[in-house]
């Protein structure tokens, strides 16, 4: 934060003719005295309204309207072209009897096994980077490269790496005398393969957030622990872990919400949803139904279920967030 304040002051000083109150705390303006300057306030209201108008219109037009429409469409036999007929809960009844729906939902949740694995590794890496060894910046950059890389390109690359005969993964395994399977064509290996790739791609992001959190822990805690003769593990358990808990929480929630939306990897690595649909995710199935078979009503019903899952996770986040001392500011 210190650097930001610096920048702010620089910005302030470069303005001529204005006398900044340096170091003054954020002074909220006093309650408007209505009778005195209401015209001025009205003008300010108008300007503020105009300034926020674009995102508000965008929100109504591209989020609220489609969302409301989607709820309505869930109860129709909509195919995107013909008239929509109201069919009540038929889509949902059909959905709960659809084995592919359960399969894809199961797969989607299965992929989330990668979340604790990734977070554990990320935390270990962050602790290692926090030792202040030389080259920390270099390592940080290297671990972050997969994060910024295009998911489509990464998926194409990993699809090739998982190739049974000539892929990188099996070639490396062969050095250790292991004969690897044809990863993406095998019902039992396709999901672990995709999880491994997702962990690889997301590691740098979680690591970065953990590192920032660890670095913000006051050194005096550790010094005090040293005086008390605590060992590294005790220090981790009693200082580091509680201090990074908010970050863990944030990462778990955002990863779950993101995990529900997994699509690109699936569609590129297993264009047919994998052997016996063993790789297909829920969003992939929605996409398939809506844009390949034009069952838009059915697809909408499925996305509504998906929304409910995401909504529940978000509400949990909001509730727990308010309870912990960790706040949005």
């Amino acid at each position, binding site marked *: 934060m210190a650097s930001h304040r610096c920048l702010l002051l620089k910005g302030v000083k470069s303005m001529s003719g204005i006398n900044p*109150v340096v170091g003054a705390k*954020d002074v*909220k303006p006093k309650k408007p005295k209505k009778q005195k300057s209401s015209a001025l*306030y009205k003008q300010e209201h108008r300007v503020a309204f105009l300034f*926020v108008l674009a995102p508000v219109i965008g929100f109504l037009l591209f989020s609220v*309207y*489609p969302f409301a*429409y*989607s709820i309505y469409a869930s109860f129709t036999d909509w195919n995107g072209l013909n008239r929509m007929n109201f069919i009540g809960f038929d889509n949902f009844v059909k959905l709960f009897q659809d084995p592919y729906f359960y399969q894809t939902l199961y797969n989607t949740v299965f992929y989330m096994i990668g979340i604790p694995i990734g977070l554990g590794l990320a935390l270990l890496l962050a602790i290692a980077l926090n030792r202040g060894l030389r080259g920390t910046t270099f390592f940080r950059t290297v671990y972050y490269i997969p994060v910024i890389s295009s998911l489509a390109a990464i998926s194409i690359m990993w699809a090739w790496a998982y190739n049974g005969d000539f892929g990188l993964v099996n070639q490396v395994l062969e050095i250790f005398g292991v004969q690897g399977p044809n990863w993406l064509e095998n019902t039992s290996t396709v999901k672990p393969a995709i999880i491994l790739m997702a962990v690889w791609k997301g590691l740098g992001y979680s690591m970065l957030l953990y590192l920032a959190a660890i670095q913000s822990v006051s050194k005096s805690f550790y010094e005090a622990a040293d005086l008390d003769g605590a060992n590294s593990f005790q220090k981790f358990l009693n200082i580091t872990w509680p201090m990074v808990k908010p970050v863990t929480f944030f990462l778990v929630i955002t990863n779950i919400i993101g995990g529900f939306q997994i699509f690109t990897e699936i569609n590129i690595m297993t264009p047919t949803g994998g052997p016996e649909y063993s790789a297909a995710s829920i969003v992939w199935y929605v996409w398939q139904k809506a844009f390949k078979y034009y069952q838009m009503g059915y697809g909408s019903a499925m996305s509504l279920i998906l929304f409910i899952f*995401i909504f529940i996770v978000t509400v949990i986040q909001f509730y727990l967030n308010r309870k912990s001392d960790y706040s949005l500011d």
Partner: protein
Amino acid sequence: MKKQKRITDIIVYIILSLGSILMIGPLLWMISTSLKDKTGVFALPPQWIPDPIQFEAYTKLFQLDTLGYGIKNTIIVSLSVTIVGTITSSMAAFAFAKLRMPFKDWVFLILLASIMIPYPIIMIPQFVMFSKIGWVDTLLPLIVPGLFGNITMIFFLRQYLANVPYSLIEAAKVDGAGYLQIFFKLIFPVIRPAVAAQFILWFMGVWNDYLAPLIYLNSPEKQTLQVVIANLKATYAIQTDYPLIMAGSVVSLLPVLIVFLIFQKQIIESVALSGVKG
């Protein structure tokens, strides 16, 4: 004690190095594959450094019309969205942070709720909406929604602006500056570092987007780069032309990678901050 620390340091170093080989190895292998010829891919034992190094795949790639279209369309979409969207977002952030407006915080909270409605939830009606006005197979459905701003960016800029004292704006008003003038002359320079970081993050997001272009774009001359390389994979895997497929992926990765390496300090700081702030 000191000796023990040294040994731990060395072990940590080895682990970190092995880890970075795992992170960067697949990418290097992708580049290496793209520099082989079609048969070199299947050489045993596998070659990490292609012998001979061939640029055949890249020559072939750049002769494909689709690649040129892909690059052009991706640049059009990502630049128009991020440039216009950044202006609308930062003006809104200014209003939310510093101007008086009835129900301001409520409007902001409701906008923030849109984070809860991820794209896959609304993609079906949005598609039909755009198809009704004839925008399918054009870049417009990818561009227009972004022009109205991005709530994540508004959120972070609003946070950033919380540090700017009101007295500053009041003083500018006393000096007779209009609101637009205050925004462009006073606010924008102050929030520029935050804007830059958010701009880059958004740019990379749009550049890498795959689902929306996949839904909207059909004809080859309309497709974006991510869809083009995915199609390359589908088409050329049968011919086992892996060098060409990998070359396509390298080309799509490179611009973002370069942007990242140039601005890595700002990007990493801004991302780290976003986590701490939640």
